């Protein structure tokens, strides 16, 4: 019986793994876990089957004569080291890059960023936060001084109003979603802002079914109503915020009527949403990828921060601006500095003092200029400037936008090295594939969406010759003549904590207790910080920043008359490499993968189950239709778990100019029966 942390979403539920005869025979909920309290979602309950799948990678693969063939570790590592050295010799240190994993442990992510910076000599390190919550990090750091969830999950039980924006919480963060449903049943008002009629939207007191990508107009209309009715928290604004007059002036023209014209919801609904949220004593605001995956993602995050600050909801029990992070450890991978511009704890690579601290600790000169983001690395590969790439536990060929572009640029690399559990679509393109250990086969830590750092415990040995990511990187570093010097996961955590003020007070000994610790935890006796900004914002005063509505980069027209948005299913996860190997989860897949409204379907003579083609300017995909009132007329929606019908063959890679986030949530498409 090994208590550990769930490897799927970022809620951070407690699992117990029961192992017999070298196999996980049962996965059960941890009855005393402070977050999940004896509950799990379908993914958690079904976390066992993929571990024992015969398709797990058990030995390294090396491409010879065009085919991936089994190789010894020594051969594969030598080939990888040689390729990385050759790429650096030809194009300089920035001709190589590392994509870290938000699915692996903090220790793996720290090893990846150290490997990139101290061994390869480049800041070209990034991970999939780029395509989920990079705008949250960028936006909330500007307004509050910290890019993470401000309040704990448990605070939703203390709230007087729950305000959920662009998040399908019951499906994607099920244990939080259930808690929202329960709070709502106890009488706590629930407002849901979403273009789709989600389960929560159907339950809500108010569903604000706005047009795709019009959230800023909605929030500005709400702010207008709040100021007009005197619902703002004047004392809070005076004591704790700055730039109030500028914000108020900026929304002067955003009357509810003006906002209604852009958002497509009525002025009365906008005022009702403003009243429910602003006049409740404590409002717990949570949001998801419906906010961030837009060209206006960072500014939408800022708009939500404005809304929370104006109503006095930051730094209080039951309040907050709460981004619901996607992956089990996407918060941790960001915290560990698997980002091109910061070391662990968001210490900027451009900051000389921070750089010197890491140079001293690691005994090596580090690069000074920020590196490339994951998508910039793809473009650099396209342009021939990036020649070799190490990808750890990520499947950009399925999960990144832009049609076949990603696969083409990965193929163009001189060398693609992939560490994975399975031969994913990305791994199939690799020159060298290295078998990785799963969460159940290694020690480490995950950091959940509420900044909760929890232990991951080894319950069984990895299959075949598979190794933990940090061990793979350590071996590769040794081949390159600069070993990372790691002995075990606890040692990596200790090295990281010594260099990272927000984790400085944590150790494996302290993390033994269920539920771990929430950062910041600066000293060995500090109890951790479930709630941020209590004594004033991390940056000092909460900054109100006027933002204006920016339409999606691509709007429907005569050729592509529908808007496509993307979403996730409860029973699948990411590109499905783990969940699609669980028979009950795989059986639960819907009959079709594009949801459309009956009016749009009827016009095209499409019924549920009919074969359809979804086309955009970037590509096309064929799948089957689900006719449903989950989506409004004019909008179609696709989940992105399925490589055989990936919406990313048609999605737009137009970028948020601040966070470089692609606009995965909206593009123009045509749909026809086929």
């Amino acid at each position, binding site marked *: *019986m090994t*208590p550990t942390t769930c490897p799927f979403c970022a809620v951070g539920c407690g699992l*117990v793994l*029961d192992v017999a005869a070298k196999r996980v*025979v*049962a996965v*059960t*909920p*941890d*009855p*005393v876990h402070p977050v999940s*309290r*004896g*509950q*799990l*979602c*379908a993914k958690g*309950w*079904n976390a*066992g*089957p993929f571990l024992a799948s*015969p398709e797990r990678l058990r030995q390294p693969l090396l491409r010879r004569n065009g085919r991936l063939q089994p190789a010894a570790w020594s051969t594969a590592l030598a080939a990888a080291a040689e390729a990385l050295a050759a790429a650096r010799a030809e194009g300089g240190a920035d001709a190589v890059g590392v994509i870290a994993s938000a699915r692996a442990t903090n220790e793996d992510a720290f090893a990846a960023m150290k490997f990139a910076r101290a061994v390869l000599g480049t800041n070209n390190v990034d991970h999939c936060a780029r395509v989920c919550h990079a705008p949250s990090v960028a936006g909330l750091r500007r307004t509050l001084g910290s890019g993470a969830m401000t309040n704990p999950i448990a605070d939703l039980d203390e709230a007087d109003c729950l305000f959920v924006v662009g998040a399908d919480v*019951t*499906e994607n963060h*099920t*244990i939080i*979603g*259930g*808690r929202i*449903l*329960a709070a709502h*049943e106890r009488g706590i008002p629930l407002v849901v802002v979403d273009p789709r009629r989600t*389960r929560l939207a*159907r*339950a809500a007191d108010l569903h604000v079914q706005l047009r795709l990508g019009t959230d800023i107009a909605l929030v500005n209309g709400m702010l207008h109503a709040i100021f007009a009715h005197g619902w703002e928290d004047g004392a809070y604004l005076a004591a704790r915020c700055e730039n109030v007059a500028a914000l108020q002036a900026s929304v002067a023209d955003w009357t509810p009527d003006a906002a209604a014209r852009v958002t497509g919801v009525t002025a009365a609904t906008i005022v009702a949403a403003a009243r429910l949220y602003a006049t409740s004593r404590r409002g717990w605001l949570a949001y998801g990828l419906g906010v961030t995956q837009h060209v206006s993602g960072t500014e939408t995050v800022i708009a939500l921060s404005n809304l929370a600050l104006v109503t006095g909801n930051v730094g209080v029990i039951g309040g907050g601006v709460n981004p619901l992070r996607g992956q089990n450890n996407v918060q941790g991978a960001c915290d560990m500095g698997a980002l091109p511009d910061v070391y662990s704890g968001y210490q900027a690579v451009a900051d000389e003092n921070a750089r010197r601290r890491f140079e001293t600790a690691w005994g090596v000169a580090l690069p000074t200029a920020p590196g490339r983001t994951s998508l910039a690395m793809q473009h650099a590969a396209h342009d021939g400037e990036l020649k070799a790439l190490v990808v750890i536990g990520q499947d950009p060929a399925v999960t990144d936008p832009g049609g076949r572009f990603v696969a083409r640029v990965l193929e163009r690399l001189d060398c693609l090295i992939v560490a994975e559990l399975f031969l994913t679509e990305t791994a199939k393109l690799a020159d060298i594939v290295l078998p990785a250990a799963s969460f159940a086969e290694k020690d480490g830590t995950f950091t959940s969406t509420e900044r909760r750092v929890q232990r991951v415990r080894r319950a069984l040995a990895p299959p075949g010759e598979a190794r933990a990511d940090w061990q793979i990187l350590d071996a590769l570093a040794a081949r390159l003549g600069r070993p990372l010097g790691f002995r075990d996961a606890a040692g990596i955590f200790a090295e990281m904590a010594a260099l990272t003020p927000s984790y400085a007070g944590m150790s494996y000994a302290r993390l033994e207790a*269920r539920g771990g610790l929430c950062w910041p935890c600066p000293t060995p006796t500090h109890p951790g910080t479930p709630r941020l900004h209590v004594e004033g914002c991390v940056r000092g005063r909460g900054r109100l920043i006027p933002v204006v509505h920016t339409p999606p980069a691509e709007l429907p027209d005569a050729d592509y008359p529908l808007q496509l948005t993307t979403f996730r299913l*409860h*029973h699948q996860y990411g590109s499905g490499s783990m969940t699609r190997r669980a*028979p*009950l989860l795989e*059986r*639960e*897949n819907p*009959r079709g993968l594009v949801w459309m409204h009956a009016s749009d379907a009827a016009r095209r003579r499409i019924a*549920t*189950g009919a074969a359809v083609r979804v086309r955009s300017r970037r590509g096309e995909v064929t799948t089957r239709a689900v006719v449903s009132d989950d989506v409004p007329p004019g909008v179609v929606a696709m989940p992105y778990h399925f490589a055989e019908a990936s919406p990313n063959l048609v999605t737009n890679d137009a970028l948020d100019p601040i966070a470089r986030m692609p606009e995965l949530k909206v593009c123009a498409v045509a749909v026809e029966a086929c």
Partner: protein
Amino acid sequence: MGAGVLASRAAVDRLRRGLARDRRVIEPRSVDGAPLWVETAGEGAFAWTLAPPLVGVKGWFFPPREPVLAWDGTGAVLPTVPSPDRIAFVGLRACDLAAIAHLDAHFGADPWYRTRRDAALLVGVDCLQACAGGFCIEVDAGPFARAAFDLNLTPLPDGRVVAAWGSAVGRAALADAGVTTKAVDEGTTLLLGELATTAAASFPVRSYVARGLARLNAAPAGAAIADEEWQALGPRCLACTGCTSLCPTCTCFTVVDELDGAGGARARVWDSCLLEGFQREASGHHPAPRPGDRVRRFWYHKLSRDFAGPGGRLGCVGCGRCDVTCPGTIGALGVLAALGGER
């Protein structure tokens, strides 16, 4: 069947150590504050008052995954019926024993189940106090054990313990451990009755349970509960499979072929009738297409007399695990509260 009185709880410790001589002894223990079934070798203090573990013992007899056919690719079929260790569960509560009686009736001569079950000796311990969330008393499953045990223990306030044996194996286990018993005298019988009365009185009043059960069981079947009531509960089911996994009487499985090169196995794995895919037909037709339909079916199977098992007992044994694990708050008490007009 019969019963005797053990002089003290120390006699139970002798029994536990005696069982450990030729069996693995599994007992509830508090681990980091969580009651769990733990292998103890009969050592250490017995946890007389610990609440039943959230994860019961169903998986020992009916594992989440069990190969029922295996082959190695050379034409040979490999055996799959297990050779389980002899084990003893000590500390099963009435709810779990009632559930095992259901499993016994359901699986019958199923060789995988039967082999595991025959290797196990079951020792019950009566509950003198209601546990949080348990409602065994409302469904005639507890708090004192009624079924399935080899031995059942009722601790008395004066330190003595009444031991009832339900099988020859149970009675022999006492003798083998050198535990002597005295006859149950009239005073002890009266005391047992008082304890049962006190235990019954410790349950909170939940009048909605009887109301909900009455509506659900009104004739003709299903007539008393409007479709809308079930459809209102439907969206609360997030299809997590938690209730069916923890339910000690759920027995549905599906069959999965696991191919590994030339070899492989056909395994039965726990299924859940609350999943949409459980009953979806190849054509796409679905006999229970809406989540509310599936919620209705599940609770009808658990709470209707039409599906009563051994002793006429309902498929629900009142353990309350589904109420703990359901993110949508529609475990048994949650549903009965809705049907009984309490929510």
